[in-house]
C-alpha cells in the first residue's frame, strides 16, 4: 500500500503544511472578512428596515389614534350643540305656544262677550218687534188700542215663558 511507504511522508507533510498555511491565510484574511462584511451589512440593512417599519407603524398608530380622538371630540361637540339647540328651540316653542294660547283665550273670551252682547241686542230688538206686532194684531183684530206698558209687560212675560 502506497500509504505506508515512509519515503513520501516528509514531502506530504511539508506540502500539507505549506498548502494549509496558504489556505488559512486566504480564508482568514480574504474570505471571512469579505463574507462577514456582506452578512453584517445585510443584517444591518434588514434591521434598519425593520426599525423604520416599526417607527412608521408607531406613527400610523398615533395618527389613527389622533383621528379617532378628533372624531370622538367632534361627535361629542355636535351632540352637545344639538342638545343646546334642542333646549333653545323647545324654550322658544313653549313661549310661542304660551303666547298664542293666551291670545287665543283672550280672543275667545272677547268673542264670547261679543256674542252675548249681540244675543242680548237681538233679544231686546225681538221684544220691541214683538210688542209692536202684538199691538198691531190687537188693534186690527179687536180694534183696541192697548197702552204700550201693558203690551210690553205681556210680551216680556210671554218671552220668559217661551224661554
Amino acid at each position, binding site marked *: *500500500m*502506497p*500509504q*505506508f*511507504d515512509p*519515503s*513520501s*511522508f*516528509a*514531502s*506530504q*507533510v*511539508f*506540502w*500539507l*503544511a*505549506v*498548502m*494549509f498555511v*496558504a*489556505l*488559512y491565510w*486566504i*480564508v*482568514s484574511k*480574504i*474570505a*471571512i472578512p*469579505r*463574507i*462577514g*462584511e*456582506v*452578512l453584517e*451589512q*445585510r443584517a444591518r*440593512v434588514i434591521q434598519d428596515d425593520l426599525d423604520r417599519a416599526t417607527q412608521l407603524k408607531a406613527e400610523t398608530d398615533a395618527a389613527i389614534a389622533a383621528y379617532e380622538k378628533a372624531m370622538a371630540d367632534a361627535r361629542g361637540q355636535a351632540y352637545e350643540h344639538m342638545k343646546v339647540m334642542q333646549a333653545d328651540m323647545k324654550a322658544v316653542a313653549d313661549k310661542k305656544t304660551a303666547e298664542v294660547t293666551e291670545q287665543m283665550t283672550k280672543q275667545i273670551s272677547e268673542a264670547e262677550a261679543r256674542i252675548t252682547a249681540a244675543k242680548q241686542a237681538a233679544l231686546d230688538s225681538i221684544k220691541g218687534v214683538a210688542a209692536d206686532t202684538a199691538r198691531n194684531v190687537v188693534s186690527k183684530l179687536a180694534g183696541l188700542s192697548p197702552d204700550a206698558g201693558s203690551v210690553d209687560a205681556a210680551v216680556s212675560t210671554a218671552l220668559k215663558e217661551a224661554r
Partner: protein
Amino acid sequence: MATEHAGGHSPMAQFEIHPLINIKIGDVDISYTNSALFMTFAVALTALLFWGATRHRTMVPGRLQSTAEILYEFVAGMVKENTGTAGMKYFPFVFSIFLFILFGNFLGLMPYAFTFTSHIIVTAALAVFIFLGVTIIGFARHGLHFFSLFVPPGAPLGIAIVLAPLELFSYLIRPVSMSLRLFANMLAGHVLLKVLAGFIISLGVIFGIVPFAAVFAVTLLEIMVAAIQAYVFALLTCIYLNDAIHLH
C-alpha cells in the same frame, strides 16, 4: 517514491505518489508530488470560489456568493453552537480545515484525480496538529486545572479514580480515531470504485451494465461521504476545542 508499481489497473495504483518536481533539502526529500498538486488545486479552488463570490458583493447574493455564504454560515453556526462565542476566534481555522478536506475529497472523486485525504500521513498530520493545538489551548486557558477534564463531573472519588485513566486514554486516542476515520473512508470508497469499475471492463458491454450501475450508485454515495467526512472532521475539531475552552 512509488516503489511498488503493481500495474496501472491495481486498485491501489491510484494512491501512488509520483514526484513532479524533485526537491531535496539535505537528505530530506520534499519533492512536489501529485499529492501536493491536488492540495494546490484545493487551495486554488477555495481562493477562486471566494474571489468569485466576493467580487461583486451584493445585498441579494448571486449563485456563487450564495454558495460561499452558505458554507460560511454553516461552519460559523457549527463553531458557535459547539464552542460558544469564546470559540469563534478559532472559526477561521475550523473553516480552513473544513474547506481543505471538503475540496480534497471532492477533487479526489474526479476521474484520474489523486485524493490526498486518502493518505494516513496527511490525515494524521492534521489530526495531531489539532490534538496538540487543543491541548495547548486547554493548558493555556486553565493551567493545571485542565486535568479536571479527565475527572467526570459529579462522580464519587472511588469511581473517578477508575474513570480518570479511561478518560485520559480516550483523550489520547482522539488523533488516532480522527485520522483513521477520514483515511479509511476515503481509502475504502476509492478502492471500491476502482474494483467495481474493473468489473465493467472484464464483464464487457452487456453484463458490464450491472457493475456500471453499482459504480454510479457508489459514486453518489462517495459524494455524500466526501461532504460528511469533511463535516465530521470539522465538527470533532469544534468538540475538542469546546473541551479545551470550557472543560466540561
